[in-house]
């Protein structure tokens, strides 16, 4: 089943890819440049007694980053549904040629 990509296909690939790379890698670089914490979660600093004295939050809220990735995944899902529901060129012709002539 070889098909060429139409405008919707290209747009879905470009937008979803952009959103996912933005959420994972680009904002990850922003977080590294912003300094500690280098992970994507808040880090609690404790004193010798083990009491939390300070909490350092990541520069970019992980909810925003995961949200961008999920948005990209949703676009891919919608694209998949579009592909399943759209007729394939020559599909009807293929089916009609299978019908016996008698």
């Amino acid at each position: 089943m070889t098909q060429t990509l139409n405008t919707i296909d290209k747009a879905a690939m470009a937008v979803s890819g952009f959103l996912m790379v933005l959420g994972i890698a680009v904002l990850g670089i922003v977080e590294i440049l912003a300094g500690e914490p280098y992970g994507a979660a808040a880090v609690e600093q404790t004193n010798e007694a083990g009491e939390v004295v300070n909490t350092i939050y990541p520069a970019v809220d992980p909810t925003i980053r995961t949200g961008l990735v999920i948005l990209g995944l949703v676009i891919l899902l919608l694209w998949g549904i579009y592909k399943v529901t759209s007729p394939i060129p020559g599909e009807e012709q293929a089916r009609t040629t299978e019908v016996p002539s008698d």
Partner: protein
Amino acid sequence: MSYQAANPLSEEFSLELSGPLAGYWLAFLRVVTGWWFFHAGVTKLIEDGLSYSYGPMYLQGMEGTALGPLPVWMGNNLGWLIEAMVPLGETLIGLGLLFGVLVRLASVFGAFFMTLFWVGNASFGHGLVNGDLMGLLLFGTMIVFATGRYYGLDAIIERTKFVKNRPRLRYLLG
């Protein structure tokens, strides 16, 4: 990417992307991913049957995530369904991938599960890319490369007249 439909056990060895090595590796990835989910699901079925009560509790704890109030609402209102569908869904997804049946459809549901695990499980202490996200990407790989066509039953199902007359089914098979 082509696959050797006529002789998948061909002894040719190639480092090119279209070679038998690629098919072998994709099939291996599919089987391991399938076993991962089958094991997770069937052990829940053995221990809790269709009453996996941790499922709704897990969703109820997903407050303040990028999925908004949806998982909490699901945990509160669809508990009876979640309790049954988590073990059953994981088992069926696993079986689909293990035998290579309806791999693309099974992988869509697998990706849905992994999205919930990725967003709900992780504190992201070591960054956003963790094992759950890699699992999610594995299911994406299953869909993109149609791995059920490599040593999987989808390769046979896709050659049936029923599927040939309905080529769009190949978006769910393969």
